[in-house]
């Protein structure tokens, strides 16, 4: 009896060990993906293009800065009607500053300050490992497939399926699902580019969603650079002055 119990314990421990090794490996891949996509603290420029079913385009240019795990700001540079607007993210909290309003307004992750398929959590995206845990991990021919689960219910998407390019260790395709299992959107990373200082990552992100049929949004990345910022920058009072950091 004791021998059987011992065997059972040993096999359970072995199984748990296997799972922990697998989760660890998946988590390591996710951490590597985050570091390859962007340094922990950086600045960059982005162009967002929203394309409607009739072909109409609306373009926005954003100057973006990030510090650590959960502080991020995006400042609108173009179009002129939006110039000077800025958005701040501190963890799960987000604000929008409009120069003509003066007082920053609270916004949510599923709203969109630019319209289109990208929502605020896509525009002010923190590291994937900050918001998600790796649930399972499989290896395919040229890619790893990570199944990610949101750490809590404040995260915009409950589950992500992420295909990671083995060669460059950056995502090539991400499917975002709601808690009900509904596919909310698919993100496609492409155009792997050397941005200098060891940053080699996709320069283009395209998204489409079954919820917005025939709509498409594109994000183009430029001038991604490591840079440190003071904590005071990531405050509501500083939003009118973000432009001076450029």
């Amino acid at each position, binding site marked *: 009896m004791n021998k059987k119990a011992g065997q059972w314990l040993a096999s359970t421990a072995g199984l748990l060990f296997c799972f922990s090794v697998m989760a660890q490996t998946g988590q390591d891949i996710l951490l590597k993906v985050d570091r390859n996509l962007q340094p922990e603290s950086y600045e960059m420029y982005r162009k967002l293009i929203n394309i409607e079913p009739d072909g109409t385009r609306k373009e926005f240019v954003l100057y973006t800065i990030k510090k650590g795990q959960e502080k991020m700001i995006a400042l609108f540079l173009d179009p002129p009607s939006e110039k000077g607007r800025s958005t701040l993210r501190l963890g799960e909290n987000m604000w929008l500053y409009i120069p003509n309003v003066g007082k920053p307004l609270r916004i949510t992750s599923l709203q969109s300050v630019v319209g289109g398929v990208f929502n605020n959590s896509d525009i002010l995206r923190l590291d994937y490992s900050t918001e998600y845990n790796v649930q399972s991990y499989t290896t395919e021919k040229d890619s790893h497939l990570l199944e990610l689960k949101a750490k809590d219910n404040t995260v915009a998407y409950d589950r992500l399926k992420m295909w990671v390019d083995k060669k460059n260790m950056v995502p090539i395709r991400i499917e975002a699902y709601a808690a009900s299992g509904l596919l909310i959107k698919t993100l496609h990373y492409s155009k792997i580019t050397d941005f200098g200082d060891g940053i080699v990552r996709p320069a283009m992100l395209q998204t489409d969603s079954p919820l917005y049929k025939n709509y498409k949004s*594109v994000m183009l990345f430029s001038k991604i650079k490591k840079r440190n910022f003071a904590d005071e920058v990531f405050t509501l009072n*500083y939003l009118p002055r973000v432009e001076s*950091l450029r």
Partner: protein
Amino acid sequence: MIKERLTRAVWVVSLLVPLPVNAAEEFSFDMSSYEKRSHELGGYVEFLADRQWLNTDSGAYQLAEELLQNRNIINHQSAVIELTGKYNRENWQGFFNLHALSEKDSVNSRDEDSQFYEAVLAYKPDPGMTAELGKRALRWGKGYAWNPVGFVERSKNPDEPDLSREGYTMLVMDITGS
């Protein structure tokens, strides 16, 4: 002969069939237009001409009849120029908003006015400290026509609440520490 006709037909059909919208969709991002400059200038010019037909039987007309000099039509013309500018040099920044207006209607004589709505010199030695001196328009609130806590701002024009408004002369210090 048949082959030639077939090739021609394929060519015609291929020219008639529209290409999918995103067949050759290419996106580009030219950063040169967004490089930071030491100075920026902007603004707009607006000309407006309108004619109002007055209801001479209304009570409001009876009350203002003398003022309206028995007119039943009023013609109005206005021109607005607004110029904004910014200049950055190291820790210093200056910016202004110049507003000039000229208007005339059949009842009133020409009215002209030009003034700086904003003219500020700012000193920003580090992200934790900013000092500003000059005429500045502070904004407080998203109310469409009225902001109950907008104590230091001029009242909005309810017809055009988004118009820029004249500021007040002030010294503003902002110190944030962590």
